[in-house]
C-alpha cells in the first residue's frame, strides 16, 4: 500500500468555499494521485472502482455522524478523514469506532490536511491529542456504565424488568397489575425491590437509571 498513490474523494455536501480549500490542501499532499468530487449517492460506485480511496467528510455541523455511518454501510471500508470545527460536539469515540482514521479542524485544514492525508495514505491514524483525550474520557464513561450494568442487571428478575418497562410507559400500579395479571400489592412489592436494586427512590429516578443501564429503552 505505501508505494501506491491514493485517490482523494470529496463528497459534494460541503460549502463550495470549503471544498475549494480541501481541494487545494489535498493537492499539496504527496501521496495523492487524483482528487475527485462526487455526490453522496455516487459514492458507492466510485469506491467500488478506486483502489485505496481516502474519503473526506465534512461533519462540522453533523454531530450524529450519519454520513460516516452510511459510508461504513457500503462495506468498502475506505479511509475516512473527518472535517470538524473547534466546537464539534460529536462523539470522538463513536467516530473512531466507525473506523475514522483522522480528524482535521476546518480552520486549520489548509495547513494540516496535506500532512494528514499522507499519514492516512500510509495506513496511520491522525488523531489530535484533544480528540484522543475526549475519546478516552468517553471510554471511561462507558466503562463505568458497563460496570454498573454488570453489578445491577443480573440481580433484576425478568418480572421486575417488565414492571420497569410499564413504569416507563407511564402506567399506574393498578394498570401494571392488570396488564401482568397480578394484584397491585404484588406490583408494589416488585417496585420496592426494583427501587432497592437500582438504589433509587422515585419512579422518575428508576426510569432514568434503568435507561442509563440499558434495562429499558426510552422511545
Amino acid at each position: 500500500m505505501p508505494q501506491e498513490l491514493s485517490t482523494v474523494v470529496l463528497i459534494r455536501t460541503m460549502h463550495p468555499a470549503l471544498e475549494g480549500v480541501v481541494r487545494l490542501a489535498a493537492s499539496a499532499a504527496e501521496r495523492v494521485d487524483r482528487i475527485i468530487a462526487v455526490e453522496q449517492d455516487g459514492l458507492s460506485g466510485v469506491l467500488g472502482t478506486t483502489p485505496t480511496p481516502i474519503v473526506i467528510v465534512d461533519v462540522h455541523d453533523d454531530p450524529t455522524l450519519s454520513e460516516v455511518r452510511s459510508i461504513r454501510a457500503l462495506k468498502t471500508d475506505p479511509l475516512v478523514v473527518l472535517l470538524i470545527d473547534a466546537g464539534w460536539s460529536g462523539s470522538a469515540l463513536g467516530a473512531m469506532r466507525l473506523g475514522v482514521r483522522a480528524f482535521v479542524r476546518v480552520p486549520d485544514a489548509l495547513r494540516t490536511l496535506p500532512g494528514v492525508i499522507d499519514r492516512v495514505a500510509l495506513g496511520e491514524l491522525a488523531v489530535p491529542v484533544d480528540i484522543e483525550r475526549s475519546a478516552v474520557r468517553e471510554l471511561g464513561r462507558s466503562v463505568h456504565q458497563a460496570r454498573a450494568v454488570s453489578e445491577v442487571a443480573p440481580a433484576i428478575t425478568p418480572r421486575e424488568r417488565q414492571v420497569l418497562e410499564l413504569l416507563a410507559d407511564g402506567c399506574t400500579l393498578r394498570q401494571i397489575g392488570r396488564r401482568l395479571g397480578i394484584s397491585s400489592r404484588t406490583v408494589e412489592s416488585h417496585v420496592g425491590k426494583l427501587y432497592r436494586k437500582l438504589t433509587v427512590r422515585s419512579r422518575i429516578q428508576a426510569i432514568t437509571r434503568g435507561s442509563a443501564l440499558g434495562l429499558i429503552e426510552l422511545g
Partner: protein
Amino acid sequence: MTHPEGLGAGMAETSMTERAEDLGKPGRRRWGVIVVEPLGVVRAGIGLLVEQEPDLEVLAAVGDADDALAAITRSRRTRVIDLIGLDLQGERDAAWLIREIRHRHPTHAILAMGSNADPTAISRALFVGADGFVDKEVDREAFIASIRQVRERETVLVGPPPVAIGMIAEKIERRRDLDAQLTAREREVLTVAAEGLTAKQIAERLGVRERTITTHLGRIYGKLGVGGRIAAVQVAARSGLVDSRPRD
C-alpha cells in the same frame, strides 16, 4: 517462564517498607504508590523512577497479588496509587487483584501496566476496576504523567495506538451486554466452563448437582444464541469475561 525471583524483590521491599513507616506521619501531602510487577528488575526500575518525583513515594514494590494486598493493608493510607502489571499470572492474576482492590479500597487510584497489551487485556483491566492503562514502553515523562493523571481519577490510556481505543470500547460494550444477559450464577458457570471442565466437574466445584449445571449451560447457550460450549466460551473470551491467554 522463569523469573529471577530474588533479584530486586526482597531488597526493594525491605528498604521501601521502612521508608513507608517513616513517611506514614500525618501532614504529608504526597501520594503513596504501590508497585505490583512480577519481573524483579522492571519492578525495581519503576520504583526508582517514581521515587524521584517529589509528590510521589513508593510504599512497597511487590511481585504478586498476596504481597500487594498485605502491603496495602499495612500502609493504612487512602491516597494511594496502585500500579499493577498485567503480566501477573495464576489464580490471583492482575484482574483478580484489581477487582479486589477496587472493592476493598475504593479511594485508591489503579493504573494497569503492560507491554504491548492487547485490547482485550486492557478492556478487562478497565472493566474490573482499573482507572487507566499505561504501556511500560512509553518514555519516563509520559509514564509519570500517566500516574499523576490517574491520581485525579481520570481515565487514562497512555501508549496504545489510537486505533486501540475503539477496539477497547467495543470489548467493554460486549462485556456489558454479556453481563446484562446472564445471571450472576450463569456468569460463574460460564467462567468455570471456560477452564475446560466437564459438567460434572463444574458441579463439584460449585457444590451443586450435575443436572443443575447442564440446565444453566443450556440457558446460557440460548441467551448467547450459540450452539454449544466452545462457541459460548468464545463469546466469553471475546468480551473479556474469561482470560483467553494460554495459562502456563
